[in-house]
C-alpha cells in the first residue's frame, strides 16, 4: 500500500511546487568574463582551529571565526616595519631614556645630541647597499610612513659642554676605537681572573666575547637596535656587524665625551664589564675555548713543566677502582693521574679510556684553576684595579 505522503508528492501541484523551488536554486546566468573566485579558500590551509571550540559561541559564530582566521592566514604576515613609524615614538625621548638606562646621563659632557651622533651611521654606498639616494628616510616616506618630526618638539635638547661644531657627524671614527677598547678590556679582565690559563686559550675566549654575534646580542638587549639612524633598523635587514658597531661606538663615546680622563676610562670599562663580561657569569669558562683531542696531553706536559714538574717525569695513569666492569651500562672505571707518586687528578667513565680522557681534562682544569669549585669571577672590579693588575 503506497503511503499518503508519496501519493501527495506525486500530485501535480506538489511537483509543480518542487519544480519552482528547484528553479529558484539554479544559478542565474552572469555576463562576467572572468570566473568569480570562490569565497572559501581550498582546503590546503591547515585547520588550526581544530580543538579550539568555544562552548559559549553559537555554531554560526564559530564558523565565522574559523573563516576569518583562514582569511587572515591567507593574507600573509604583517609587513616588517621599524619601531619608529608608529605614532608613540619620539627620538628625543627615546635617546634620553637610553642615556639614563645605560647610566651615561650623569657623565659630564654627555647629551642626547651626542648619543644621537654616536648611533648615527654614515649613509655611504659601501655600507650594506644603502645608497645616498635611497636613504631610509626617503624609503619610509615613499611607503607612506611618517618621518619623526623633531621640529615640533618645544623642549630643547639638553645642552652639553661639548659645542655642536666639535661633535662628530656620525660614529665612523668611534667604531674602531670602541672595538679596540672592548678587546683590551676583555683581555685585561681575563688575564687578571685567569692568570694560569695559557695566552692562546684566553685569546680564543676574548675573540668569542668580542665577536659580532656577542656584541650584537648585547646591543639588542640594551635597546640600541631601534635607535640607530642611517641604517634600516628592521630586524631582518639589520646585519649583526652594524649592531656590534653601535655598542662599540657607545663604549668609545663614554670614554671620549668626558673631559676627565679617569672618569671616561671608568665609564667605558663599566659598560664593557656590566654588559659584555657578565656573559661569563653562570657559564663554564672551559666552554669558551676548545683544545684539540691530540693536543691535550702535550698541553698537560707543558703546563706541568710550567708549574715546576720536570719534563722527564713520566705521567702515570692508574686504575683506582672499577665497578661492574663487564656490564655495558653500569660499569664505572676510576682512573687517577699520578706524577712523581703524587696524586694530580682523577676521572671516571664507562670505559677505562673515557676515564683516562676525563682524568686529563680534570688535571688541566686543576692546573688552569678553571674547575667548578673555583671562586666566582669578580664583576665589581674598577678600572683602577684592572690597570694595577698588569703592573
Amino acid at each position, binding site marked *: 500500500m503506497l503511503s499518503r505522503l508519496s501519493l501527495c508528492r506525486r500530485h501535480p501541484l506538489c511537483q509543480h511546487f518542487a519544480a519552482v523551488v528547484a528553479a529558484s536554486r539554479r544559478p542565474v546566468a552572469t555576463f562576467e568574463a572572468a570566473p568569480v573566485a570562490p569565497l572559501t579558500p581550498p582546503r590546503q590551509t591547515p585547520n588550526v582551529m581544530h580543538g579550539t571550540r568555544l562552548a559559549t559561541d553559537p555554531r554560526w559564530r564559530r564558523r565565522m571565526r574559523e573563516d576569518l582566521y583562514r582569511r587572515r592566514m591567507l593574507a600573509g604576515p604583517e609587513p616588517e616595519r621599524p619601531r619608529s613609524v608608529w605614532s608613540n615614538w619620539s627620538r628625543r*625621548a627615546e635617546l634620553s631614556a637610553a642615556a639614563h638606562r645605560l647610566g651615561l*646621563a650623569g657623565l659630564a659632557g654627555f647629551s642626547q645630541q651626542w648619543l644621537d651622533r654616536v648611533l648615527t651611521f654614515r649613509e655611504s654606498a659601501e655600507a650594506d647597499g644603502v645608497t645616498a639616494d635611497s636613504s631610509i628616510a626617503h624609503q619610509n616616506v615613499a611607503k607612506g610612513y611618517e618621518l619623526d618630526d623633531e621640529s615640533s618638539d618645544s623642549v630643547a635638547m639638553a645642552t652639553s659642554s661639548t659645542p655642536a661644531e666639535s661633535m662628530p657627524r656620525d660614529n665612523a671614527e668611534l667604531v674602531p676605537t670602541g672595538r679596540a677598547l672592548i678587546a683590551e678590556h676583555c683581555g685585561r679582565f681575563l688575564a687578571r681572573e685567569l692568570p694560569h690559563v695559557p695566552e692562546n686559550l684566553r685569546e680564543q675566549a676574548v675573540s668569542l666575547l668580542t665577536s659580532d654575534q656577542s656584541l650584537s646580542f648585547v646591543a639588542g638587549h640594551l635597546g640600541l637596535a631601534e635607535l640607530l639612524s642611517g641604517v634600516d633598523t628592521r630586524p631582518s635587514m639589520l646585519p649583526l656587524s652594524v649592531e656590534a658597531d653601535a655598542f662599540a661606538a657607545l663604549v668609545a663615546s663614554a670614554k671620549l665625551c668626558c673631559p676627565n680622563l679617569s672618569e671616561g676610562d671608568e665609564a667605558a670599562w663599566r659598560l664593557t664589564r656590566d654588559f659584555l663580561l657578565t656573559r661569563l657569569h653562570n657559564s663554564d669558562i672551559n666552554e669558551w675555548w676548545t683544545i684539540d683531542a691530540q693536543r691535550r696531553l702535550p698541553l698537560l706536559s707543558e703546563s706541568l713543566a710550567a708549574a715546576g714538574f720536570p719534563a722527564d717525569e713520566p705521567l702515570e695513569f692508574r686504575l683506582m677502582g672499577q*665497578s*661492574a666492569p*663487564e656490564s655495558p651500562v653500569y660499569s664505572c672505571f676510576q682512573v687517577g693521574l699520578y706524577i712523581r707518586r703524587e696524586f694530580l687528578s682523577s676521572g671516571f667513565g664507562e670505559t677505562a679510556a673515557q676515564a683516562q680522557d676525563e682524568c686529563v681534562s680534570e688535571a688541566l682544569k686543576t692546573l688552569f684553576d678553571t674547575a667548578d669549585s673555583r671562586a666566582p669571577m669578580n664583576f665589581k672590579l674598577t678600572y683602577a684595579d684592572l690597570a694595577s693588575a698588569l703592573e
Partner: protein
Amino acid sequence: RQMLPRVFLSQPLQNGVSRYTCQLKRITLKFCKFRPNSLGAREFIENGDFLEFARANPQVACYLKPRRNRPPVLQAEFANGSVQLARIDSFPAEFVRRWFWLMRGRSGDDLLPLHENLRSFHPSVQGVWTPFTFGRSVGLGDLSDSRHRPMSPSATELIQQLHRLQSARMS
C-alpha cells in the same frame, strides 16, 4: 589539552650581577577621552600620577595615546623585545598606577612556571658522585647481594663454592 611549558630561572644579560638595569624601555597608555571605561586612566593622568611615574623613571619613555572608542590599554615594551599588554578596562586610577609600577619591575620574560626557584650552572662544587667518592674500594655491582653482578665469579666465591661442594660430598 596542552600544558604550559616550564622554563628555567634566568635574567636577560645577567641583569643584577654587576649592575641593575631597568628592563622596561617604553610604556604607552592608550585611552579614550570620552568613554566611561577609560575613566580610571583619565584620572590617573589628571591626578599627576603619570607625570610622577615619568619623573621617577627617566630611563622609561612614557607615551600617551588617546584613541576614540577603544578600551584603555597599557602597552609595555621591554629590553628583550617583548611587548606586554595590560587591559585596564574600567580600572580605578589606583589600579592603573599599580600596573605601571608593576611593569617597571618586570624583565619582559613570559610568565611561565619554573622548573625550580633557583638555577646554577655549577650543580656540584664537590664533584660528581661515583661509587668511589666516599672511599669505597668496591662498587655497587661487586656486592654479593647485588643484581648487577659481574659474570665471572671472584676468587673468594670460587673457594666458597668448592667448600660447599666438598661439605655436601662429605655429608
